[in-house]
């Protein structure tokens, strides 16, 4: 446990991603099986001790220290595990030495509701402060130390010089403590066979199209749909749906999983059919209604029926097609799509355009809310995991822009921790001359150059008018041109709207703050606002 505790402590105080990766890789290399496997499971959130609940930890400490002193300390520290690790009294009798990670995991796993307190107390007695902190984090499954599952897997790949894509692919077929995975990575065993398990394969991703002109003889074009990119995997009689990060979202979309009856791995966009929109694909907002649900009520299945618009095929049965050119995979996909349930699956149609200029014209005219832009795929491209240059491009629609006023700023994290780099900006409720005030409409921390960042940082420092913890309020004088992909209505924000992907596109030092945009202007950019705008033409009373 000492080594794992040291790892957690070091990770907490290391901000740089590369520093975290190095710490994790050292740990995974140095520590033997099965400790490292259990630690990896803890870091990736794949470990659960049903008998250990947060309430047990609180009950334990209150039996040992004055509850008032605990409550005051907990308020100050803000984290129960840390407070308990700092306050746990030294054991009165002799205790055995510190447990290893595996021993601790075995004891926690074997605990029942009746024995959980005794098991946990016995372990805490054998550990020092850092060890107690690590144990409690592991036991309650709430690490919150700034390490994502993806980062832990990346570190695994780096530690053993294996491909991250392969780790990702095998990962979903493995169970803690991942003995097979370590055996393969260290060269002690061949790669595990996962052909009969429905597991996630890493996605092929697109790069943004900058100023290139694309030859449509080499590249096929299709619409980029504004839904959730998903992978449907069916193997060994089971079907799973995975999001872009490899998260299993089958439970939220059982209708789609049940309708899929073809062994293989398909890539597509999950969309919701909005009946109110004439049977077409509804907006991303409708899809949000379905996301993140463990069980889906029948009413939602009817109101927001989900379907998949297919993009690509990775495996057909056990036949791995990823090395084939896109055109061959597309032909195969078209054949399969015809045999699938039409109400749950269709194929993303290719855009017919003779020239790049004609395509640009089509892209400019597309106004459907569910179209984000155009995808361009090299006709001879293999299905390569990640973002390989020159194979696939995404060509998003021109962003919308608005002139907003800088209101608040906050320091960034990591490299930017000494700079005010997170900006909250607002628009006017009415023209300032008519008594309008600024309300925040969004927050952005990208889009500017390093030079612009320095300038903005110094602006914030010089123009601070108030401080609220880490947040600085600034003189409302600076206009920022903000670019964003869409505006949606929002009940969470006072302004009633929320921007999608806002970023700073220009600093408008030339523009006075009272000439920034009105919130009403943004509201008209929402789909609902556009309609309401048409209907609410001035009418005689």
């Amino acid at each position, binding site marked *: 446990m000492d080594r794992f505790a040291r790892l957690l402590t070091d990770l907490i*105080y290391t901000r740089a991603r590369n520093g975290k990766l190095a710490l994790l890789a050292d740990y995974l290399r140095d520590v033997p099986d099965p400790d490292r496997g259990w630690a990896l499971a803890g870091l990736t959130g794949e470990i659960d001790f049903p008998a250990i609940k947060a309430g047990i930890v609180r009950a334990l400490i209150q039996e040992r220290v004055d509850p*008032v002193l605990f409550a*005051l300390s907990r308020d*100050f520290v803000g984290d129960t595990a840390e407070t308990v690790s700092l306050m746990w009294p030294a054991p009165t009798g002799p205790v055995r030495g510190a447990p290893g990670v595996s021993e601790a995991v075995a004891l926690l796993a074997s605990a029942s509701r009746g024995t959980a307190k005794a098991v946990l107390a016995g372990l805490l007695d054998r550990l020092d402060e850092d060890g107690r902190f690590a144990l409690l984090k592991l036991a309650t499954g709430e690490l919150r130390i700034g390490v994502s599952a993806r980062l832990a897997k990346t570190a695994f790949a780096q530690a053993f010089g294996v491909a991250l894509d392969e780790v990702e692919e095998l990962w979903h077929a493995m169970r803690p403590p991942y003995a097979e995975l370590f055996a393969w990575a260290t060269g002690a065993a061949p790669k595990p066979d996962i052909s009969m398990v429905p597991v996630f394969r890493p996605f092929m991703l697109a790069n943004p199209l900058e100023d290139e002109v694309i030859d449509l003889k080499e590249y096929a074009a299709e619409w980029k749909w504004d839904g959730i990119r998903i992978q449907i995997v069916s193997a060994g009689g089971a079907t799973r749906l995975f999001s872009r990060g490899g998260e299993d979202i089958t439970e939220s979309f059982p209708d789609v999983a049940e309708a899929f009856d073809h062994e293989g791995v398909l890539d597509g966009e999950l969309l919701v059919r909005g009946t109110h929109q004439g049977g077409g694909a509804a907006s991303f907002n409708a899809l949000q209604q379905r996301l993140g649900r463990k069980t889906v009520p029948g009413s939602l299945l009817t109101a927001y029926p989900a379907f998949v618009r297919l993009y690509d095929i990775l495996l057909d049965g056990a036949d791995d097609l990823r090395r084939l050119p896109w055109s061959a995979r597309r032909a195969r996909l078209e054949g399969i799509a015809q045999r699938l349930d039409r109400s749950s699956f269709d194929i993303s149609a290719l855009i017919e355009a003779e020239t790049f200029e004609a395509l640009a014209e089509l892209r400019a005219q597309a106004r459907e809310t569910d179209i984000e832009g155009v995808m361009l795929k090299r006709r001879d491209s293999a299905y390569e995991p990640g973002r390989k240059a020159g194979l696939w491009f995404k060509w998003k629609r021109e962003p919308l822009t608005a002139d907003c006023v800088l209101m608040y700023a906050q320091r960034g994290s990591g490299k930017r921790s*000494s700079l005010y780099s997170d900006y909250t900006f607002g628009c006017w409720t009415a023209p300032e001359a008519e008594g309008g005030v600024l309300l925040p409409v969004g927050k952005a921390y990208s889009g500017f150059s390093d030079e612009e960042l320095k300038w903005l940082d110094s602006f914030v420092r010089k123009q601070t008018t108030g401080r609220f913890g880490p947040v600085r309020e600034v003189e409302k004088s600076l206009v920022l041109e903000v670019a964003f992909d869409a505006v949606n209505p929002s009940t969470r924000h006072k302004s009633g709207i929320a921007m999608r992907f806002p970023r700073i596109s220009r600093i408008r030092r030339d523009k006075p703050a009272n000439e920034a945009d009105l919130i009403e202007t943004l509201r008209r950019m929402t789909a609902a606002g556009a309609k309401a705008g048409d209907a609410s033409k001035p009418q005689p009373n």
Partner: protein
Amino acid sequence: MPTGPETPRWIKAEREGLHLPTIGWWIDPSRAVANALVTHGHADHARGGHGEVWATAATRDIIDLRYGKPPGGGDVAYGECIEIGDSITATFLPAGHVLGSAQILLERQGERIIVTGDYKRRPDPTCAPFTPAPCDILITEATFALPIFTHPPIEREIARLRAGRDANPDRTILVGAYALGKAQRVIAELRRSGYHETIWLHGAMTAMCDLYQRHGVALGPLAPVSETPRGDLKGQIVICPPSALNSVWARRLPDPVNAVASGWMRVRQRAVQSNVELPLIISDHCDWNELTATILEVAPQETWITHGREDALLHWCAMRQIRARALDLVGREDEDEAA
């Protein structure tokens, strides 16, 4: 206000400090007054603008450095007793907090009141050790008065600082430490651990380090950062005020490792929030066990608790039937805690 008959009428706790109303004197007042007794030089205890300032020679030197020479008053040696009127005497006893820091023992007609100021019980090579003395009323600080605060041995923290330096030969180890007290203690403890290389100072540190050395505290070779090519500071230890850690000034150093020497570093989230990579739990205050042990050792009839987390200490006293009350004094925070 406490109601017990033994509460003397010649001392009163006011928002601005402890007041001796029969003679109009104050102890550590937060506004300018005619006559002040000052426990030590930190800004929340020593202010400029007083008429007479009675304090140890080192504390008066610190006040002189920071605010200019007080027009009146005088130096008081440890153990020395001065008469200040209305039969009240004041005796200065070492508090072990920083150079010159004192507890002030006030006596009148057999009644004894000790104002600890800030204090600690651990050895510190830069100042005289705390001397416990019996009293009727103990007026104690409570900066770290929560049971989560138990300071580790300083040797362990200095070893971690040196290990951090050895592990990062291409980076500056930038230690945020209060300019008065903490900085010199860290330097002196580094020397005691056998570290004899030059230690580099932020400009705000130089004058105070000079003052310590004039008072006989050896700090070894020191040099200002400002006169050094930045590249030469790789693998070097630089000491700066905590507020300079994330400043434009710090950005010019070679990829600094942010360290902070403070008792607050005991709490991980505190350290992470202040962007600290190498937290050093080094405090010039008592930890929880030392505060409670001091109350038991001095065994006053009544304990008054000033700045800090007085709730926990009040509760602890109540559970042991120790008479205690919290004082509501303004502006008592750790100097430069904002970092």
